[in-house]
């Protein structure tokens, strides 16, 4: 700094030496030059700003009309009109999911001076929960202050009345009607129909913004999710002119929304309700399928929950209670329940033996109470000490003779065993029209390698023959396999959607089903298995279940140990038989011309025959009247068709 100052002084000293007069003259010249330049600069500035002013004049006078029109056009808002969601019915036309008019409180933040005070005062008139306020604040963030935001959903009539009286005290708060999803039968169809919920950020990445403009809810589970596209419909829109405060002045143009399609499910509410009642709250699951076409007639998962809780956002307390509830009500047992099939697998193992040619229907096996793999000392036991003697397939199924199925599985070998059982649909999702289906476990070399990275042992093939070991099935897989058996070896993909009503007043159209697959080819094969299953009901473990039933029932029980005997839990848990066993029953009827296949799985019970079979019987009883009616109608039709010809 000092140096710089020095040089400056030095320089001025030089100019001073040139004489004060000259210096003064130079300074005057410089000032005069500056003034000329400043004037020139100022003129340039005025020139440029005049050009700018002319540009403004051109925009604001010459082109004013054009821009005013475009500014007006900016004042036209396009408002989406969300479509009404399609309804869901059972096969008889009973409503399972509907849209009901409800009322909610909406707040326009712009018109509220002190939000916190207003909410406090409002809570004294209409109860407002913490969850409501939290959601309200969340929704507010994404909106402009002149847009109203829902605060409390589903007002009761009393709440509406109380608010109406006090309305003057709450400017900016309004009662607004809206359509909300409602499930009139509540918990009964929570796992089948599913529920809708508020669109969340994850949904937003998936959904088309245009199709969901104005829509607040989307299918989250069950049929509501799987058939979201059909149920949703097409939104319409409305062009409205708004004033500067965004109040709509008039509607300029309107395209009505197209409501979603109404869906008729194959579910028969009579069978469903009878089954639910028969479970009496015991955890388990049941599935009924029409073996002729794969239509699911009933789908039961006990315990269940009220899907209506989820529609407008479940409260933390309710959700925590559901998570903590015994029996896991939120779990869909039909799709994801893991059951050890036990003896219910025997008809399929027997059928696989025939199908692969390992056994003929008449071949017999000697049961001596224990089966040995040649050269090994370990014995695989029969249920009866000393064995059942010489039995063929029919007797083996009827008496549940383990040795017969040990030997079939052993002779077949694990590779052929898992291949044929896989064809029956085990070890993979059935492909039902629902999301989130489990696969169960089909024992195989590859599965064990992948799961445990261990080689397969022949003994594991033997116990797989009686549905034990690594076997895990879902109720839907077992039901679909039973339907395949009842359907003479035709495997259908199970379906819930039966008919679709596309528009108001249209007749429901039958939904095309994927073609079935023939997995058993010789008639004698399934007839032999069926005879064994008829014997089970006539004289075997499910004796008496067909008392006073007009049709022949074919069935098979299964009673699987929940814990392996070597498990420590075996001795530590209470040893009552009820808690030790998973019990199952599979059946179809009428044996001559099967029209329904049912399976029931209970997570705890004494035996399949005593606890699971009676539930099946109650479901068949509920199915019977409708079937008798349809059959009578069909006979009359064939009779009347035959008469003129004859």
């Amino acid at each position, binding site marked *: 700094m000092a140096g710089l100052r020095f040089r400056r002084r030095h320089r001025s000293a030089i100019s001073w030496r040139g004489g004060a007069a000259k210096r003064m003259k130079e300074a005057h010249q410089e000032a005069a030059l500056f003034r000329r330049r400043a004037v020139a600069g100022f003129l340039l500035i005025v020139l440029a700003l005049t050009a700018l002013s002319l540009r403004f004049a051109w*925009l604001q006078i010459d082109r004013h009309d054009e821009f005013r029109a475009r500014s007006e056009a900016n004042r036209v808002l396009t408002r989406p009109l969300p479509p009404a969601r399609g309804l869901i019915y059972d096969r008889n036309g009973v409503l399972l999911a509907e849209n009901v008019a409800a009322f909610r409180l909406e707040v326009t933040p712009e018109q509220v001076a002190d939000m916190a005070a207003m909410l406090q005062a409002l809570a004294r008139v209409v109860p407002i929960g913490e969850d409501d306020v939290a959601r309200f604040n969340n929704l507010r963030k994404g909106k402009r202050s002149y847009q109203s935001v829902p605060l409390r959903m589903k007002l009761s009539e009393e709440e509406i009345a109380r608010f109406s009286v006090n309305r003057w005290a709450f400017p900016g708060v309004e009662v607004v009607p809206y359509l909300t999803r409602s499930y009139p039968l509540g918990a009964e169809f929570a796992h089948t129909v599913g529920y809708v919920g508020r669109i969340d950020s994850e949904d937003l990445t998936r959904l088309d913004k245009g199709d969901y403009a104005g829509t607040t809810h989307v299918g989250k589970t069950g049929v509501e999710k799987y058939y979201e596209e059909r149920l949703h419909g097409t939104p319409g829109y409305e062009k409205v002119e708004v004033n500067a405060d965004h109040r709509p002045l008039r509607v300029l143009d309107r395209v009505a929304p197209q409501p979603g399609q109404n869906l008729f499910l194959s579910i028969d509410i009579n069978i469903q309700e009878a089954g639910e009642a028969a479970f009496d709250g015991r955890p388990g699951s049941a599935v009924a399928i029409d073996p002729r076409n794969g239509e699911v007639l009933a789908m039961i998962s006990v315990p269940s929950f009220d899907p209506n809780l989820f529609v407008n956002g479940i409260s933390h307390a309710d959700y925590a209670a559901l998570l903590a509830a015994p029996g896991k009500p939120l779990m869909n047992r039909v799709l994801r329940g893991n059951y050890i099939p036990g003896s219910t697998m025997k008809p399929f193992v027997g059928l696989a033996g025939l199908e692969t040619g390992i056994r003929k229907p008449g071949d017999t096996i000697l049961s001596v109470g224990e089966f040995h793999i040649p050269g090994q000392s370990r014995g695989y036991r029969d249920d009866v000490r000393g064995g059942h003697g010489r039995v063929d397939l029919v007797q083996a199924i009827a008496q549940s003779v383990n040795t017969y199925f040990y030997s079939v599985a052993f002779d077949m070998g694990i590779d052929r065993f898992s291949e044929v059982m896989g064809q029956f649909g085990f070890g993979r999702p059935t492909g039902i029209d629902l999301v989130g289906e489990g696969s169960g476990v089909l024992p195989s070399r590859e599965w064990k390698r992948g799961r445990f990275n261990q080689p397969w042992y022949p003994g594991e093939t033997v116990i797989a023959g009686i549905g034990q070991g690594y076997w895990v099935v879902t109720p839907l897989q077992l039901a679909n396999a039973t339907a395949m058996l009842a359907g003479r070896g035709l495997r259908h993909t199970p379906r819930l959607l039966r008919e679709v009503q596309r528009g108001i007043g249209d007749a429901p159209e039958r939904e095309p089903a994927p073609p079935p697959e023939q997995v058993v080819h010789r008639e004698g094969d399934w007839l032999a298995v069926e005879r064994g299953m008829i014997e089970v009901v006539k004289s075997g473990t499910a004796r008496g279940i067909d008392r006073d039933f007009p049709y022949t029932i074919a069935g098979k029980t299964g009673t699987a140990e929940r814990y392996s005997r070597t498990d420590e839990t075996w001795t530590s848990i209470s040893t009552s038989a009820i808690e030790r066993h998973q019990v199952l029953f599979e059946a179809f009827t009428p044996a001559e011309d099967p029209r329904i296949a049912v399976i029931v799985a209970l997570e705890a019970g004494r035996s399949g025959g005593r606890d699971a079979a009676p539930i099946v019987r109650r479901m068949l009883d509920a199915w019977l009247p409708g079937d008798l009616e349809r059959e009578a109608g069909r006979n009359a039709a064939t009779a009347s068709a035959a008469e003129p010809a004859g």
Partner: protein
Amino acid sequence: MIDEAIARLGYRLRGMVGRPRMDLPLLGALLLLMGIGLVTLYSASDLDRGQVLAQALRLLLGLAFMFAIARVPPLVLRNWTPWLYGASVLLLLAVALLGEGRGAHRWLDLGILRFQPSEFLKLSMPMMVAWYLNGRPLPPGWATLAVVGILILIPAALIAEQPDLGTALLVAASGAFGVFLAGLAWWRIGALLAAAAAAVPIGWQFLHDYQKNRVLTLLDPEADPLGNGWHIIQSQIAVGSGGIWGKGWHRGTQSRLEFLPEHTTDFIFSVFAEEWGLVGVLLLLALYVFIIARCLWIAASAKDTYARLLAGSISMALFVYVMVNGGMIAGMLPVVGVPLPLMSYGGTSAVSILAGFGVLMSIHAHRKRGAG
């Protein structure tokens, strides 16, 4: 006791404002402009009192700077000049090496305070040019011009690199005005402009894609109505729909319905033009012309070459702000982030502009005797 304190305070206030230190017409015009700015901001922010209050506080801070600088004699400013210039160029280098900011490196974070060093150049650049030209034989020759060119180009290039082309042009212009006012011969100016015109195609290569887009969009805004053209189209709709008399205060639908982007900062002029019409625009431009003219008059009556050139450059730089911002919102010039002086919402620009006026006030207070 208290009376005495009030009396003393009153005396001091009179001392700050009342004595010939302050040029009262200029001060009055500035206060009027700030008032118009706050009223427009109140409308543009959709009656957000918080935003208006925040801006008012920034303007007060700027006024405090102005009063403080006005008390510093130009001789002291002149002695500080090389140091201020050197420090601000170093800060620019620091930003280039370790600055931060969204997309562009403009900010320097000093822990408690973040700022844009390029703002300093708006003042230190004309100071440096005036300092260098002071005492040189004037009008300047090629040699002088070459040195000034280097003094201008180093910081301008650093700022353009950030990239902040708008500020770089402003800074370069404020330096160039110094040479112009120093009496650079017209034929030399003509030669320089011709050379600059020839360099345009070369400079085009160095522009970022978004900068090229902004220029191209200006030529045909309708080609990209939702992207780059949006600003230009919506701004012109706002201006044009205002008509002669305007829509009235807080009746401008373009900004209220949020069609107009950045309507409290760079595009606040559009809001003003929409609500006050051509009449308002002309009056506002007249106010700016009055301020510029008054500043040039202050410059002309300054004591020495340094003060004259500095005051002249600052006044003419003010014009560049108004022209670039007004040209942008009227669709004449590309979209460049240049605020409208004392109208746009934002702290740094308000403070740096008022600091510039502080320099002018100081020069006015220490002017030649007998002139004014």
